[in-house]
């Protein structure tokens, strides 16, 4: 058994930023199933929002309003205010930590336009902003290497909560296969999103919702799981992200007839509408037969008019991705794209200081915190604006760290039965390793992801979702007979089986939340309920796991401070 004051799970922007706040004050451990520099924060491309007003007259006020509206009024406005007001300080802090930002002619941090933002608000480092920020924080943790311990390639499978008090986690060392209890006074999850439930996704293979599932299995609710963001410009067939910065820099979206189709859907903002609207527009073009290519199953991102210099200077990663993965030279031809599952708005509900909520009435879990994509504060509501995710991870990662610094000393080291916890973890693994072994893991995973992409995607309806729900039930059953190979050291087959068991569990909540929500709001768009219904649905979904099996949905009102819902026009 390992013992630390604070156990941080996840080494992306949220986890590392929190770790920096507490390193040196407490005995801190950071657990990651990859290596810190390989966390998925690094895949963010286009920018990070902050009203620095380096290029125009932006204000935090405007940022707040844009975020509330972008969220289709499901965001909690007090949390959004905190995030947007803290944004300029966050960027300046990262600049001082050494992040290499692209610069304006006046030698200040450059800012570009982004979907749903009314000013040029996205600070960036070419088109690898997440990478630049993540590596900067990784550097800062190396600076503090004597003060915090990083456990790389340790896979956390269980969160230990007893009597409303969090006492640690159980984790498997992937390299050796041994399982250990990590006993602590406080635990913070910064474990990222759950986009790998989908076949077409921009998410890393690692984004299998392990953290949220561990919390859910420990008895905590999950919030707004039905809200999954589809990014309009995923590389055709691969789903790989091509940053919104491509449109922020002036790129066009074209259908098969070479028309800039966004004129029909968002006449003022055109390509720079928020992601939910642009994704639906692209999907509609494809569904109505105006796609491009022999199968008319994609639309096009056209950068050609930006010219060689701008593309290579501002969008080099996009240029290389199109070239390496599709063989398309974006200087000479438009790039085939489709919507791709991109961001998880839902997750572990928390208060504004990142402490996890135990129920819909505001009860809390002692000693358990969550920040970043795995958390649901909620600042993104029904649809996140591009560039707000990196911001959220850093703002709330730091807040979580500050809160941990403040409270951890007063939290007792509550007892843990190592034997019981290890036995429970072993039972989970045994169910996977020792069963009838008649079902193929990759087939189950494939069927799940296909069902989610085809039936719980950009557009949803009761019939499709019912079919998807049935399918998930069937796959959950088949998973009890899954075949997995043995071996202790670096058994990636066992890891992917554990990941799949998580994906099967939370996918049901995505579908169930979406089935229950009889309206269209943000990223949740229903053919059969095409209108937003503020009368009945200005509320967050909370899914609770029933100990006897199954789950229950309850609801929690949205916190509105200044902005009453109005029609969203772009």
């Amino acid at each position, binding site marked *: 058994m390992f013992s630390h004051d604070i156990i941080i799970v996840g080494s992306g922007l949220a986890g590392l930023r929190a770790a920096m706040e507490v390193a040196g004050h407490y005995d801190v451990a950071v657990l990651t199933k990859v290596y810190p520099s*390989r966390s998925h924060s690094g895949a963010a491309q286009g920018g990070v929002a902050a009203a*620095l007003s380096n290029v125009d007259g932006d204000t935090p006020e405007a940022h707040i309003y844009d975020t509330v509206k972008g969220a289709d009024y499901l965001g909690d406005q007090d949390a959004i205010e905190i995030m947007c007001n803290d944004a300029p300080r966050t960027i*300046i802090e990262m600049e001082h930590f050494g992040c*290499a930002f692209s610069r304006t002619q006046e030698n200040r941090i450059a800012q570009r336009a982004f979907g749903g933002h009314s000013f040029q608000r996205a600070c960036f480092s070419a088109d690898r902003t997440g990478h630049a920020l993540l590596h900067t924080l990784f550097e800062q943790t190396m600076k503090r*290497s004597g003060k915090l311990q990083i456990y790389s390639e340790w896979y956390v499978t269980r969160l230990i909560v007893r009597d409303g008090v969090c006492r640690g986690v159980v984790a498997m060392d992937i390299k050796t296969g041994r399982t250990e209890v990590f006993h602590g006074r406080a635990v913070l999850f910064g474990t990222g999103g759950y986009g790998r439930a989908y076949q077409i996704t921009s998410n890393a293979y690692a984004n299998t919702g392990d953290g949220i599932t561990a919390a859910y299995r420990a008895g905590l609710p999950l919030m707004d799981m039905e809200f999954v963001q589809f990014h309009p410009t995923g590389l055709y067939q691969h789903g790989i992200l091509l940053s919104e910065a491509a449109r922020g820099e002036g790129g066009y979206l074209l259908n098969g007839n070479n028309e800039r189709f966004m004129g029909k859907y968002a006449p003022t903002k055109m390509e720079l509408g928020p992601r939910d609207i642009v994704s639906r527009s692209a999907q509609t073009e494809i569904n109505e037969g105006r796609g491009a290519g022999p199968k008319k199953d994609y639309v096009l991102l056209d950068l050609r008019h930006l010219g060689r210099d701008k593309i290579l200077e501002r969008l080099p990663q996009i240029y290389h991705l199109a070239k390496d993965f599709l*063989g398309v030279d974006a200087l000479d031809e438009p790039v085939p794209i489709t919507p791709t599952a991109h961001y998880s708005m839902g997750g572990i509900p928390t208060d504004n200081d990142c402490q996890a909520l135990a129920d819909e009435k505001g009860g809390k879990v002692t000693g358990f915190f969550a920040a970043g994509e795995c958390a649901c504060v909620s600042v993104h509501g029904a649809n996140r604006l591009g560039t707000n995710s990196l911001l959220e991870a850093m703002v709330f990662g730091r807040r979580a760290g500050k809160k941990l610094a403040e409270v951890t000393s007063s939290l007792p080291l509550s007892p843990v039965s190592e034997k019981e916890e290890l036995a429970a973890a072993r039972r989970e693994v045994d169910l996977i390793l020792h069963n009838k072994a008649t079902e193929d893991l990759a087939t189950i995973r494939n069927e799940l992801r296909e069902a989610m992409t085809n039936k719980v995607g950009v557009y949803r309806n009761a019939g499709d979702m019912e079919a998807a729900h049935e399918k998930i039930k069937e796959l959950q059953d088949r998973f009890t007979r899954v075949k997995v190979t043995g071996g202790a050291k670096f058994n990636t087959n066992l890891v992917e089986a554990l990941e799949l068991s998580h994906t099967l569990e939370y996918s049901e909540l995505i579908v169930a939340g979406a089935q229950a929500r009889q309206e269209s709001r943000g990223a949740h768009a229903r053919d059969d309920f095409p209108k937003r219904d503020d009368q009945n649905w200005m509320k967050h979904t909370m899914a609770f796991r029933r100990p006897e099996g199954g789950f229950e949905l309850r609801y929690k009102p949205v916190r509105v401070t200044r902005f009453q819902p109005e029609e969203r026009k772009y």
Partner: protein
Amino acid sequence: MAKVTFRISRFNPDTDSAPRYQDYPFELEPGITLLNCLNRIRAEQDPSLAYRMSCGSAICGSCAMRVHGHALLACKTQASQLVKNGVIRIDPLGNMKVIRDLVVDLEPFWASLRKVKPWLMPDALDNPEKERQQTQAQFHLIDDVTTCILCAACYSDCNVLEVDPQFYGPATLAKGHRFIFDSRDARKDDRLEAVSELHGVWDCTHCGECSTRCPTETKPLARIEETREAAIRAGVTNNNGARHALGFRETVGKSGRLNENYLPARSVGFFNIPALIGLMPVGIRMFMRGKNPPLIHHSIDKVAEVRRVFSKFEEYRK
């Protein structure tokens, strides 16, 4: 669709004493990446095959491995480009111990990074409430080097690391460069001193493997060369590497050819008696085999032209 064979190095530490190759027949569809091939092999033929991967879009650096002996990033490489006589042979990264199949122990790589204190050390007088100014030109100095994804492809294929595990390695020296060339860092001279020491920038042999294998714009060899030049410009010359480079230029600039008697002593320092004595056995062996340079060094016939080239270059540099 082309039929090919994937010949993949397998090693299970629990049962194998040494790695062995296993062949997997494969129908190569057009446009498929190497990582997607491996994922299909694992899904359809052999779930026990172990390798690292995460983002699948060339930014996390997890899936570096060797194909036909050379490191690359599996996710961004088209498999069709890799077929040699119907075979794609895959090995784990080099210069590190194999844990299982294509998974290596990366700890030496991460440990090497820390040698260059890879974090910004700003001026203590900077106002933390305001962003610091940086020109676009200053950003461009660190634009390429900050694309490094720490995939360790360069570490794997570095020829110096093969013989000197203490060598900082290409990625680490690139990381050092990243701060030396950052206008906001206040410790440039200390950093230049540190990387000029033994196992640092001067130990690189310019083979260029690192830059050839680098999947990003980092291109470590170029960064190492820029660091060397910066060190000399900053007057960080009290080390063997810099003395060697300067001595090289001196003798060629003076006589049009290398003075091989002078250079070793110039490199270690003329008053460095223990090092000079250390050189003697090599000298003696060369003499015994008739490989010693002439004792009296003569200029080449057209030495004036060489001198003209040098003076032109000096003008250009100014």
